């Protein structure tokens, strides 16, 4: 499946459009049997001291759904993610994961439900990519954290799925930023949780790796996993996400199916007047307005 997403050199531009059409036709993902909300954020407010960052945020993600979080730099996306992971404690509101308030969850229980891909990763010790992915299996291991052969196999599969098997023995702190990002995504895949949070997972990836990451996300979503991903490219949200939530100045200013939410007016509202949304049939694209419209 990964192969048909790759765009090879020499292929005409129409391939992109046919790919997008095909993709638009295949979404939204089939709704899984699991009812309820995988992630439910209600009335969340957070401030660092006097400096308010999040103001009354409400957002929910259903199983099998990819929710894209769009917003300008510094609008509080990462802070929202850190509240969802229990790193920060919100002053108001709550975050529920499968109906359980995360304030009452131990890290071990939370890690069994939520995988988190941080924006960047710094590590003083040269762990190999394989070890790093294997660490994603930790929440599933018994009390003393013993690795089973199964864990090794799942880690290997996750690496194959992301396409980084050839990096397995390389030390993570010698990889490029993009390769490190892929390792972290593979780790989250190996964690096999029903909810995955990704903080700008494609920010330093090349085009084909971006596509293969989105492809993997669509694949896991089709298996009933809920995905909340924060992303700076409105096109990715239009093309790959079922649902979009737009954050602006610490608040959610729009939420709904991505094609309906990511409109030209909204983009111009948050990014300024240089945004154009073009539509060709079922696929849409956001472009800069070059010179005169």
């Amino acid at each position, binding site marked *: 499946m990964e192969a048909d997403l790759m765009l090879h050199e020499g292929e005409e531009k129409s391939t992109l459009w046919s790919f997008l059409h095909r993709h638009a036709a295949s979404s939204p993902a089939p709704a899984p049997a699991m009812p309820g909300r995988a992630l439910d954020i209600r009335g969340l407010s957070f401030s660092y001291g006097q400096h308010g960052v999040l103001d009354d945020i409400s957002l929910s993600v259903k199983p099998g759904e990819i929710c894209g979080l769009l917003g300008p730099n510094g609008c509080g996306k990462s802070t929202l993610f*850190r509240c969802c*992971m*229990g*790193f920060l404690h919100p002053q108001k509101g709550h975050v529920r994961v499968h109906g359980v308030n995360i304030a009452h969850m*131990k*890290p*071990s229980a*939370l*890690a*069994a439900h*939520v*995988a*988190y891909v*941080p924006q960047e*990763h*710094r*590590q*003083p*010790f*040269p*762990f*190999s990519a394989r*070890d790093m992915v294997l*660490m*994603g299996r*930790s*929440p599933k*291991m018994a009390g*003393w*954290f*013993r*690795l089973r052969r199964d864990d090794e196999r799942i880690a290997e599969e996750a690496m194959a799925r992301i396409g980084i098997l050839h990096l397995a*023995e390389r*030390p993570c*702190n010698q990889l490029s930023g993009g390769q490190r990002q892929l390792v972290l995504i593979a780790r989250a895949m190996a*964690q096999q949780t029903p909810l995955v949070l990704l903080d700008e997972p494609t920010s330093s990836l090349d085009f084909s790796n971006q596509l293969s990451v989105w492809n993997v996300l669509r694949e896991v979503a089709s298996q009933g996993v809920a995905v909340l991903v924060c992303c700076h490219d409105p096109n990715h949200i239009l093309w790959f996400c079922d649902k979009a939530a737009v954050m602006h100045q610490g608040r959610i200013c729009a939420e709904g199916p991505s094609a309906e939410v990511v409109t030209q007016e909204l983009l111009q509202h948050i990014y300024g007047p240089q945004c154009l949304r073009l539509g060709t049939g079922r696929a849409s694209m956001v472009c800069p307005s070059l010179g005169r419209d």
Partner: protein
Amino acid sequence: MLRKLRSCIALLLCAALLSGFVLSLGAGSYDIRFADTAAVLLSKLGLAGPADRMHELIVWDIRMPRLLLACVTGMAMAASGAVYQGCFRNPLVEPYILGVSAGAAWGASLAVVFPLLFPNGQVSAFLFALLAVLLSFFLARTSGETPPVTLVLSGIIVGSLFSAFVGIMKYVSSDTELREITFWMMGGFYYAGWQDVFVTACTVFPCLALLTALAWKLNILSLGDEEARSLGLQPDLCRAAFIVLATLAASVCVSAAGIIAWVGLMMPHAARMLFGPDNRWVIPASGILGALYLLLCDTLARTLTGAEIPLGIVTSIVGAPYLLWLLRAKGRESYGS
């Protein structure tokens, strides 16, 4: 493949330790031939008749506990150094940080100067080392969090405070007491007896076994608090457990052998070069390397000259250039930026 290679290196190291141990038994100001050493060992194991009385005294009652104590101390220092480095995500940390040595030194000097109040030097050294660690831990704790850098800084503060207390002890002590404190602080195994070996071994081995069993958690802890949390660990709790275990192992050795520098810094780095960064290998490997290293240093200390050179001097002279090389050759690569 990799696993086999690692096992081979580990076996080689164990063999080196064992043979080094037997050879060191024979070395010293009174040279004993290998055959005589073996005779003593065999007779003690009940496999041969009684050996020469003189040889037995030297090999079994003087050198054996001394070498064993050197090995156990090296093991504890190196393994706890590896654990501290993982805990604080800082490859330049060793048991000194957190004030283990300074705390233990004060405890021991108190026992020397006020023997009535502190009858047992080892116990009081151990208690004060623990006090120093707890103090630096709780000083660094602000509003439920323990930032690693703050912890290291508070360890340095507590360490210098306790060193000042040692200074006071030296000031008020008599000449003989001053001599005793100074010798103890330089580090060495001259007074080692079987009693010390039992006490340290019984503390160090369970600690190291636990630390090795928990090593995978240490790997995750070394990713940083947030990532550790997202992988299901309670970072503060986990770090506290590692610090207590590592400090227990280190302080009981400091109280038996004095302040021995550098082992806890050098050996984990050497272990990482040989076995990679996975703490499941690094902790036991630095243990073996530490034992080997202290055995070597101690043997050098007692054979180089007619008189004994304090061990702390030998380890520092060997260790300082090593750290310099580490900083200059591997600086950016090993320590990030």
